[in-house]
């Protein structure tokens, strides 16, 4: 599908909203309002927003844990309110404030992610099989990181998805790091996309910091999957601007990543580079950029207030949620 001017502006707007929500979540964690952990998604907004923009609302999504998957959900049309409230442990959250960053948004096809890296492979396989059986031409976007590619579950799922031609797009957010471990220490080649050949599916590498490159690659894979052509693997080379999780040391092995190194990564910033491109093309003007930022700031204030004002859940609810009543 050719993207119209409004579509391009929406992509830009959603990246800005994702970034600002990320900053707000970090602030919330620092202030003790966000519970548990936060794995910032700064640097991968283009991948999240651009890939999810290729999906229908009823397509299935296992977002990557960077930004706790919110960029993908924003790309699919959700706002950040239920996300933040969930992180605050409030009853207005996506899952009554009980699930924290392991939340689900079933209406948006996000049936729930969990922290065990690698479990997404077989579960996405199940979504894909179910989707194929119901014939609704739904597609599954199943995300994982370079570290996640080390899990054995990947093989089981890649293999069967390819044999059964399931409608799955395997999307790898390769930021070069798994927590403190560089991928070059745990994977013997340069490109994870090369795995695809072994399963007889297309495998491509894209610049994950370029939202248009992401969009085009994912769109092609989604079209193929929807048309019954089977799975594809897309590897997006991205960057992680911050530490693995907020508050943990930002090291590659023991070496602290330098400011210069991060600044170098930020030169490829998906939001900035896309903005410059759209300004050049005349799709955006400086005034529009200001307006988009202003609206996003207002949305953030509202989102924070919504979460602050909401009550936590009653503990008794916990008993009711273990089995069907």
């Amino acid at each position: 599908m050719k993207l119209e001017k409004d579509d391009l502006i929406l992509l830009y707007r959603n990246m800005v909203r994702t970034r600002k929500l990320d900053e707000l979540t970090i602030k919330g964690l620092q202030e003790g309002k966000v519970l548990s952990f936060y794995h910032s998604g700064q640097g991968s907004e283009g991948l999240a927003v651009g890939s999810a923009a290729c999906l229908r609302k009823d397509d299935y999504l296992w977002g990557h844990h960077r930004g706790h998957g919110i960029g993908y959900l924003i790309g699919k049309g959700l706002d950040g309110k239920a996300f933040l409230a969930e992180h605050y442990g409030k009853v207005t959250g996506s899952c009554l404030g009980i699930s924290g960053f392991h939340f689900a948004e079933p209406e948006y096809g996000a049936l729930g992610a969990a922290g065990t890296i690698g479990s997404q492979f077989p579960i996405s396989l199940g979504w894909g099989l179910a989707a194929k059986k119901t014939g609704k031409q739904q597609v599954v976007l199943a995300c994982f990181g370079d570290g996640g590619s080390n899990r054995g579950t990947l093989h089981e799922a890649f293999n069967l998805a390819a044999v059964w031609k399931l409608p799955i797009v395997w999307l790898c957010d390769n930021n070069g790091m798994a927590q403190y471990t560089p991928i070059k220490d745990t994977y013997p080649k340069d490109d994870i996309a090369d795995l695809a050949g072994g399963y007889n599916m297309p495998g491509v590498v894209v610049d994950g910091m370029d939202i248009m490159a992401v969009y085009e690659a994912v769109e092609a894979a989604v079209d193929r999957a929807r048309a019954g052509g089977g799975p594809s693997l897309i590897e997006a080379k991205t960057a992680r601007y911050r530490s693995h999780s907020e508050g943990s040391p930002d090291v590659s092995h023991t070496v602290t990543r330098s400011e210069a190194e991060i600044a170098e990564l930020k030169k490829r910033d998906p939001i900035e580079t896309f903005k410059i491109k759209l300004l050049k093309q005349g799709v955006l003007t400086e005034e529009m950029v200001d307006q988009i930022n202003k609206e996003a700031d207002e949305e953030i204030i509202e989102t924070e207030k919504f979460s602050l004002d909401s009550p936590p859940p009653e503990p008794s609810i916990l008993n009711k949620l273990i089995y069907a009543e």
Partner: protein
Amino acid sequence: MAKMTMVQALNLALKQEMAKDDSVIVLGEDVGVDGGVFRVTDGLINQFGQDRVLDTPLAESGIVGMSIGMAVYGLKPVCEIQFSGFSYQNFHQIENHAARLRLRSRGRYNVPMVLRTPYGGGVRALEHHSESRETFWAHMPGIKMVIPSGPRNARALLVSAIRDPDPVIFYESKALYRAFREEVPEEEETMPIGKPRIAQEGKDLTLISYGAMMRPTLEAAAGLKEKDGVEAEVIDLLTVSPLDDEIFVQSVLKTGRAVVIHEAPRSFGPGAEIVSRLMEKAFYYLEVPIERVTGYDIIIPLFSREKAYLPNAQRIIRAARKALSN
């Protein structure tokens, strides 16, 4: 003697055992160059090199399967799983191989490995990062399930676990990692695996606990003494399985009253087995039903409600008063 946190004490155990025995190998995610997420393996790679301290990929069944393979070969691997909730990825390797190889090989092989992993609540995390599922391992004949309660016994038990000819699952409480310091002797110290200890003597009531729950249990014992003049005997299991009941049975024969404490979910938790042992061996000496203070039969909730989930001194005192009421 140096005062150490549990992290430092565990580190000392690993360092000394590695220096002493070349066959001890440490492996896991980020355990080498980085020294582990909780820094228990800090500095080992510098001292012992990359051949003995292995940074592995994010691949738990690989880490544990590899450890079993090395152990059968004759090495003594000590692997780390970053959080106990990620050890279910390697469940099959432990259940089907580590626990059974001795029997399956008619006693010709053993699996002298240790799987170290942080467990339990109280650190603002969720689900896999906070749960206490020792029952999974305690229910496996062939596996030893050890949970220390402080720096000194953690160090001594880890040394014993490394030397033990059988596979040991070693749960380390995250809440205790840096909670307090204890004198830990530089010279070698071991503790027998499979032996509980009496943490505090008393005559009126027996409190049976272990791991991170020892702190609220001792706090409750102090509260009972101060407010009610009750002298509680406190038992620290240290090894959950195989469960040696002698010490706590003897204690209950004396006191006639018992409260069992664990943060694991209530049903089928270790408390169920402890209570059964008391029914079998101390029934006629019991004055009142045995009380349990445990986690609930739910998934451990997010931090906002974690305090309501975890047993604390007040809950233990309440149960103790009930057990003392007749």
